[in-house]
């Protein structure tokens, strides 16, 4: 019996997002979407989290932050790239300080497209992430 399925705790980090996706991530927690129904809690702390939601792209400065957060999460863990920027750099891909999507610096398990990614997409991605979590647990066990 795996409890991972029933209790995915998320950590959100804003890479260099425009706030659009961030706010939608937060909106998932609020009454209309209420992801706590699925046991999702926004932990705000990598040590407690199972799923890392990164919005926005990678830039020079936040590489080490994203890597650090990812490293500090205990296994098994899953990374979800939320929004076009996190997936590929999005509209900012050509900006001089943008390196591209999150997968440039940490392994990404689920890509959630959209600009901004809609809450439905984000919830979908988290649910997909739960599946990955479960697989990872089985592999490591």
């Amino acid at each position, binding site marked *: 019996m795996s409890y991972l399925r029933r209790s995915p705790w998320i950590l959100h*980090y804003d890479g260099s997002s425009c706030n659009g996706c961030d706010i939608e991530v937060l909106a998932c927690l609020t009454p209309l979407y209420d992801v706590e129904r699925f046991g999702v809690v926004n932990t705000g*702390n*990598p*040590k407690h989290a199972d799923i890392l939601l990164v919005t926005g792209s990678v830039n020079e400065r936040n590489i*080490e*932050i994203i890597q*650090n*957060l990812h*490293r*500090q999460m205990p296994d098994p863990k899953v990374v979800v790239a939320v929004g076009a920027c996190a997936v590929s750099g999005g509209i900012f891909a050509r900006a001089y300080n943008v390196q591209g999507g999150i997968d440039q610096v940490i392994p990404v398990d689920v890509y959630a497209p959209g600009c901004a990614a809609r809450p439905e997409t984000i919830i979908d991605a988290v649910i997909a992430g739960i599946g990955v979590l479960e697989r990872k647990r089985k592999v490591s066990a």
Partner: protein
Amino acid sequence: MSWTVPVLVGLPTVVGAVLLVVRRAPLRNTLVVVASVLVTAASVAAVAVLADRAGDGGAFFGLPGGMTPGYAVLAMDVVLAGTIIGFGVAHRRWFAPLLALAQLGIAGYLELGHHLPHLEADRLFWVDNLSLIMILVIGVVGPLICVHALGYMRDYHRANPMVRGRRTVFFCLLFVFLGAMFGLVITNDLPLMHVFWEVTTLCSFLLIGYTRTTETIGYAFRALNMNMIGGLGFSLAILILAGQRSGVDLARLTAEPVGGLLLAAVALLALAGLTKSAQMPFSDWLIGAMYAPTPTSALLHSSTMVKAGVFLLLRLSPAMTGSTVGTLVAGIGLLTFLFVSAVAITEQNAKKILAYSTIGSLGLVTGCAGVGTAQAVWVGAMIVIFHALAKGLLFLVVGTLENRLHTKDVEYFDTLLSRMPRVSALALVGIAGMFIAPFGVVVAKWAAIRAFLEVPGWTGAAFVVIMAFGSSLTIFYWGKLLIKILSMRAVDPVERALESRVTRFEWVTETTLAVGVVAVTALLAVLSDHVVSPYAAAAFPSGDAAAGVDPVVVGVTLLAVVFLPILAVSAWRRGGFDQADFYAGGRSTRPDHAMGAALGATRSVTLRGYYLDDVVDGALLFRAGSLVCGLALVAMAVVGWVVAA
């Protein structure tokens, strides 16, 4: 058994005198170690001899050959007063010399005027279980601290080249002091006791002023002044008692509740006890005394000398029980506990924290003595034992830390477990012994609350309220210190090497004390049944038998005392952790606890404990406490006057 007094008092005094002329360090080291072993052996032997007669009210005896002190007491008084007056004149300080003159005047009037306040030869000394406890505390903890001082003073003078080394005087004073303490705790004759009392005051004065800077001389005189006030009270009590039927016989005076002039005398003696154990409003001198070298603080200002004050109060307990004087003494003790515990929260200097904690613990004993029930004095005696061991240990550890880290600021004791794991373990034992172990303060508080609940009238409720708040305050400052010590980060080899420079003298003594703390905790039931309960029952024959020791309590607390240090050390040895994993807002982190900082820099994690500046004003509280307790003292004086008149 009459040999015990000359040996216990004489041996350390002779050793002290010899040390005065030993200038070579190796010889001194040998001498001190040998003498310490002898003193401990003598005290153990004395206790063994006295043990079977000490129970049930105690045994009385005199000097070998039925000698009486006679004019020797007056001679000693002259010497002591002369010394104090001499120092006072030399430093242009007049208060202490005046008090010394007054005391000398009283002694002269009594002795020369043949009002002879002395006992017949066979009641000069009185040994009961409380005395035995004190003899063991002095005879075991004292010599250990003397040995520890060998290591400490070497490093101390290396670290402070400006201070002129006067180690001959230093060690002489330590041993003379031990002799006086032995004398003090077994004397039944009050004028004789007063002499020993004043010797300890003088030793304390000289040791506080060891470095001879303007600052320390100031603190030394402050201690002297306050202790002399108590000494004068002692003299006045003798003056009153000299004309009474019970005379200057301590055992007879304290056999049962007293009234009238006797109660006034008891109040005056209690004043002496309060000053010696640094209860408010006299707490100031003990804080100043922390400027003395740390072994002095360990020996005089926590383990033994200040215990003389509460020893006297416990002695007086049966006499003042149920009287207003007793209640006021208890009030002063408990309020002192409450106030200094709050002040300790705001203190950053490790020695001063220990000093406040000492005053607080002594306050608890004072409270127990003032309340005066079998249960209460049982708690008081237990605290005396545990406090002597644990606080002695803590002071020694702080001394070691001070010489290694070159600071007494607890803020710089952080990550100690990583830097000095063995010293940390010792510190943990000390702290656990101080406030987790039975009759380390936490459980003492429980037992004290139990005792206070039985006190009739609203004062009992007030005491319980004070205990509830005071005990929470102690959790705060000890907890804060524990956090510092238990925190860990990767350290470099230079820091790791710190511990290898701790001297053997320090290791041996500190480890012994730590073992002592754990052993006494484990043997609590034995200690209670065979030593402390009989004392309490003898002091208060009418009262309930002293609280038995709940095996659950012992088990739980022993678990805690052993749990902390053992887990800490074993965990320290275990691998499988990543110290770079600490949370720093997602910033990059390193095992030595450096983290990415503003403006692209990297900085080491620095942490500061809370001192609750917004809520607690230490200086103000200290003054407030002194004022309240001072008022209680005034009330005590009025009561004493009224009952006397």
